[in-house]
């Protein structure tokens, strides 16, 4: 097959490209330019898209003897990922931009362009497995459970999955680094990138304030309804957050307080004690199925955040009016169908805007963007 290997300049995508080549495919390396104002050098383990990273990717491609190109998806990335990220925070939700990037850039903008130019598929260095099942290709968790990235790939539909390769799914990170060293890749010991690539200093609140400005509001105690403080904008807060509330704990009862609700429409951040954080009903919209949609009420595993634990649950697709309140966030356009997930036990700190990804064993069934939470 003719395959585009997406090469970030990191160790994972380097080994992924090498393995595709070893498997006999015709491989072309492509580095995605996602920012028009890329920095020259990496400054920390954060961020990914500097000119230095593009150069690292090129050196790996040279070593493999494959053609290498930089494709400019910067304007699409800005529109489909960055602006979405800002709008979600502005609406009081907590988005996961990596999921959006996979859904709209890597396995849409990049994949569609590759197909139009005559390629058959895209390969990336994600840790996940594609398995041939009875009714087509299935997406499964990686063997290395600590590195498993099937959560951020839960947005892929069957058509996208049919043209995707994840050659690292059967390996551990340690094996991949070792292989990179054996292959003589200069990136073998390069640190992993973390956090959000377009916020290189890791200061999400500061970055959002730069985009959205200060939007002051009140901190409200869930138990009493009393105003206990002020804040500079709801975009600085996420359900489950404990730090950065700026509370004088002595004025309360001494117990730790958490964000339990973010209401962008009234600029209110509601805080409460730990027990208010637990939810066992999660509802989501923006459904994406990796294969056929489940027809009925089914038993599944549910994961509600990127590095969270999987919880046994019952999932059901529901349509029509009703549904849980969106934890005070701005009302969404009524989206149907939705998925309602009843967790077997309570989970703390489930933030609207994150995704719930459903699993059947190791197989990814699909995902939804969390629109509301509650207690049964």
């Amino acid at each position, binding site marked *: 097959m003719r395959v585009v290997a997406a090469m970030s300049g990191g160790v994972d995508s380097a080994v992924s490209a090498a393995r595709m080549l070893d498997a006999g495919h015709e491989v*072309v390396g492509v*580095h995605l*330019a996602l920012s*028009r104002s*890329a920095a020259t050098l990496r400054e920390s383990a954060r961020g990914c*898209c*500097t*000119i230095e990273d*593009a150069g690292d990717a090129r050196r790996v491609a040279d070593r493999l003897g494959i*053609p290498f*190109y*930089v*494709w*400019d998806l*910067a*304007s*699409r990335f800005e529109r489909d990922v960055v602006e979405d990220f800002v709008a979600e925070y502005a609406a009081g939700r907590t988005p996961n931009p990596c999921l959006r990037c996979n859904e709209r850039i890597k396995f849409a*903008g990049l994949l*569609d*362009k590759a197909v*139009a*130019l*005559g390629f058959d598929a895209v390969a990336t260095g994600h840790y996940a497995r594609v398995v041939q099942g009875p009714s087509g290709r299935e997406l499964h968790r990686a063997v290395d459970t600590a590195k498993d990235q099937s959560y951020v790939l839960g947005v892929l539909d069957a058509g996208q999955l049919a043209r995707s390769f994840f050659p690292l799914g059967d390996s551990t990170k340690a094996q991949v680094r070792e292989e990179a060293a054996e292959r003589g890749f200069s990136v073998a010991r390069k640190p992993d990138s973390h956090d959000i690539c377009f916020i290189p200093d890791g200061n999400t609140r500061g970055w959002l304030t730069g985009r959205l400005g200060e939007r002051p509001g009140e901190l409200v105690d869930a138990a009493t309804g009393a105003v206990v403080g002020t804040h500079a904008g709801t975009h600085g807060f996420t359900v489950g957050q404990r730090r950065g509330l700026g509370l004088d704990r002595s004025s309360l009862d001494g117990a730790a307080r958490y964000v339990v609700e973010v209401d962008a429409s009234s600029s209110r951040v509601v805080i409460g004690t730990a027990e208010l954080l637990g939810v066992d009903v999660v509802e989501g919209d923006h459904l994406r199925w990796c294969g056929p949609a489940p027809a009925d009420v089914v038993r599944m595993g549910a994961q509600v955040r990127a590095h969270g634990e999987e919880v046994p649950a019952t999932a059901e697709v529901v349509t029509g009016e009703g549904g849980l309140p969106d934890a005070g966030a701005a009302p969404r356009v009524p989206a149907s169908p939705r998925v309602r997930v009843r967790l077997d036990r309570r989970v703390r700190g489930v933030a609207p805007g994150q995704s719930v990804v459903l699993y059947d064993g190791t197989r990814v069934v699909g995902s939804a963007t969390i629109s509301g939470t509650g207690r049964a």
Partner: protein
Amino acid sequence: MTHYLDHAATTPMLPAAVEALAEQASRPGNASSLHGSGRAARAVVEESRERIAEESRERIAAVLGARPSEVVFTSGGTEADNLAVKGTYAARRAADPSRSRLVVSGIEHHAVLDPVEFLVEHGAEVSWLEPDRCGHISVDDLRRALAENSDDAALISVMWANNEVGTIQPVAELAALAREHGVPFHTDAVQAVAHLPVRFDDSGADLMTVSGHKVGGPLGVGALLARRDARLVPLLHGGGQERQVRSGTLDVPGIRSFAVALEETVAVRDVEAKRVMGLRDRLLEGAVGLGLGITVSGCWSPGDGTRRLPGNAHLLVPGCEGDSLLYLLDAAGVECSTGSACQAGVPQPSHVLLAMGHSEADARGALRLSLGHTSTEADVDAFLAALPGVVERARRAGGLL
């Protein structure tokens, strides 16, 4: 079989230039490599090295219509442009603090634009000369700019021929006007030397940039031709080589190779320009004639090498992204360029095309094919044969965005 149509980026070295480079590099020139041979031997080597450098300087000067003392060797075109812009500005300001204005064309190479912008950040003023739709700078515009700013202009810089769209500027007229106003005139002639009758003395310019790797010589060597009365503050301070204007031990192998390449290129220049122009016209007629909506940017009349470089073909392919076109042509064995500067490989819309009045959308589908001494009809035909399929595919990909 690959077809190299990117001579404006770097033209392959001429065999004689490769030979000169290798021969000079293999001569013992480093004092530390002369174990035990004493001061006398070292003196002989240094003398011979200096002799080669000075001979090369004379050969380059002769070919370009300059005096040997007017040749200031540099590490290439970028350094020469920087020296011309920053060095002149600093010298003029030092002599007369009111001379704070640069008069510069909007279609210069980044090696001129970026030093200008650097100086603007440090207090310089700038008057931009914008091109017409064809990519030409008008003498009247310079006259107007000088009439408005005759008291504070420190330097005028207008390139001889543009690196993207190949348009040739009226350098002699611009330089004459500059002289009337007593303002130093610099021209970047990097793209012009291989195919146009470039003579420093006849041009009337005070400063002129040339580069080795655009004329079949090596990378990493170039020169600023500077009239003996040109005042320049050095960029590189040190041992005082090169007229006290540019310090650093000379790259003698590179300089010798540059001289050989330049002599050889200029010896066949007129014949070669005509030959290459025939290929260019064949390419442009073929591309425009495909009926795919492809247009030529900048002025072009078949058989004319006075308004546009003989070897430059620049196309706008509507509905396509430059990176898709490059990939597909590469896969078909044709190497070319979008012609504009890249940042992390991200094609920025060309400032030259925007200055000529093209939209950002048009500028995204730009394709530069530049011909030179190795180009053949087979190269042009391979490009034309690949083009319809390439455009169809690239349009499919472009329509997705």
